[in-house]
């Protein structure tokens, strides 16, 4: 198992290299001269040329890429064109904000979505099931930004219970997290319900019933682990994506997270910051994926035996 984890970690290196190369190429082909950006509209041609030379922008594309990678490996991701601060200093304070948002968002979704999904499946066609399915369907259909705005209107403006935008202390996280949770929770609920329904129709569930097991025991001991596999994949994927920034929610609630940083850096052509944020997002997604795969192998022995073999 350890070997498997090591192998997977090593495999992330070529992936990150690939992503950085593609990104570098895209940035290269987008119009806009960094030197011009830094110096502003008023700069003379000589000044710009001088800065370009100084930044090494006149070198060959590949030379610059290799230089970027070599620097990056040493922890130097360059300086932001926009603020002149080091990229690491730009990105690092943002990351915990997004991490908190994504973590509590997902945790809420899992804690509410999975149990309700299970109950819904076990009591299929009951009133409770109907209410849950309809609510879930509604929540998945509501656009996140609208839900965010409505929550903000109600709790921040009308009732004044919670701050609308400030994430200085924990109360500021409540509204963005709830908004984030709503959609994911609804998806998790629906997935849990459907995989659970599918699982309880399996032959081995019938075997368990033929043994005299109670419904409760069947659900928790026999069905749950089998039913949760696809849900775990979904949760992992969503969490991975959200770690890269929850763009819409961060914009609605003006949260200074990774998503808003990326948007700003794209808009300002701040390519060093953009590159670093995307690479960080990719790295997180990779880690989460690996974690999900490890979790998988603990749930399903068939997968574990594949890992150990492979």
């Amino acid at each position, binding site marked *: 198992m350890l070997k498997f984890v090591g192998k997977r970690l090593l495999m992330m290196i070529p992936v990150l290299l690939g992503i950085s190369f593609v990104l570098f190429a895209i940035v290269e082909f987008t119009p806009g001269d960094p030197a011009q950006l830094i110096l502003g509209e008023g700069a003379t041609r000589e000044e710009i040329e001088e800065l370009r030379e100084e930044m090494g922008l006149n070198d060959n594309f590949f030379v610059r890429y290799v230089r970027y990678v070599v620097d990056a490996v040493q922890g130097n991701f360059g300086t932001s064109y926009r603020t002149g601060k080091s990229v690491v200093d730009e990105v690092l304070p943002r990351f915990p904000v997004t991490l908190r948002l994504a973590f509590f968002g997902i945790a809420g979704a899992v804690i509410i979505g999975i149990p309700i999904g299970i109950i819904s499946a076990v009591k299929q066609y009951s009133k409770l099931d109907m209410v849950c399915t309809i609510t879930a369907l509604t929540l998945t259909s509501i656009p996140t930004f609208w839900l965010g705005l409505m929550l903000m209107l109600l709790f921040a403006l009308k009732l004044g219970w919670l701050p609308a935008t400030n994430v200085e202390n924990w109360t500021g996280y409540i509204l963005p997290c709830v908004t984030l949770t709503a959609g994911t929770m609804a998806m998790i609920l629906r997935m849990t319900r459907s995989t659970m329904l599918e699982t309880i129709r399996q*032959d081995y569930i019938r*075997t368990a019933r033929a043994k*005299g*097991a109670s419904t409760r025991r069947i659900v928790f001991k*026999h069905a749950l*682990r089998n039913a949760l596999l696809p849900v775990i994949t979904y949760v992992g994927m969503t969490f991975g994506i959200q770690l890269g920034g929850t763009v819409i929610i961060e914009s609605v609630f003006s949260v200074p997270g990774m998503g808003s940083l990326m948007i700003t850096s794209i808009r300002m052509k701040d390519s060093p910051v953009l590159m670093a944020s995307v690479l960080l997002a990719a790295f997180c997604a990779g880690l989460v994926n690996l974690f999900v795969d490890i979790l998988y192998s603990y749930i399903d022995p068939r997968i574990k*035996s594949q890992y150990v073999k492979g």
Partner: protein
Amino acid sequence: MEKKKLLEIRNLHVQYKTDEAIVHAVNGVDLCVDEGETLGLVGETGAGKTTTALTIMGLLPERVGQVTEGELYLNGVDVIHAPEGQLKMMRGATASMIFQDPMTSLNPVIPVGDQILEVLELHKKDKMSHSEMEARVDQILEMVGIPAARKTEYPHQFSGGMKQRVVIAIALACEPLLLLADEPTTALDVTIQAQVLEMMRTLKKELNTAMVLITHDLGVVARICDRVGIMYAGEVVEIGTVEDIYTGEKHHPYTTGLFGAIPDLTKKTRRLNPIDGLMPDPTRLPSGCKFHDRCPHCMEICKTAPPQDITEGSHTIKCHLYDKEVQK
């Protein structure tokens, strides 16, 4: 000495209600099984064999499957009207069921030993300590021909035949009075089939378990069963001892047809002799005798009046041909 009746089914009717139609799966089945006896249930797919077995276990699919008429007593318990709690105690302890496909009937994420242990935990908790139960798991695994050391392995590490042995081990762990085996060997290779059947027969004798063996393999029935019931369209059309069925003179025309449908190696038949036609649609059963549109001996009365059971000693046939009143 009169043997005790373990299972008694009288005039059982079971329907599956779906949105589109009502499926008449079982239409007036009468069956008895004595303690320690083996009854074979033979018939084509859809004859109601599995439904009958599921009803005995109280495991008809919820909401969809319903007993509409009849009585069913298992070891004195009225299964149809018993509360779920009582059925739970019965399942796995008084009666166990082995399902057709061993590939899917074991939980893929639980070691096989734990799956056997579970049935003991459910029923023997107050009688056995944990270590006794573990010992019993080892013992029962060895009984079905699996080294006890393999109990920590998962189902995917076993072959089909081995899996079915595990399933049998689960079914027999609590030494039930009745074992329902629903085509236990159909999904297995022919060579393995014989081994598994032989093992089931020995175990059943050792534990003095009664068995209902559902199959469409008449050869298997001849080897293992004491009595045989032939099912067609949700009815038992003929039932008797193995001798009655295999060597008797009189038969239900459907039974004759079934025997005609197995190739006989000793005789030089040119081709198989299957029964013409198909099983009737269980949502629209024919009037009178349900076999009449396929029966070579069909008479006028068969089309309107359902035949009664005609019993001679241990042998019962549901057919107008043997009804003295009709023949007059």
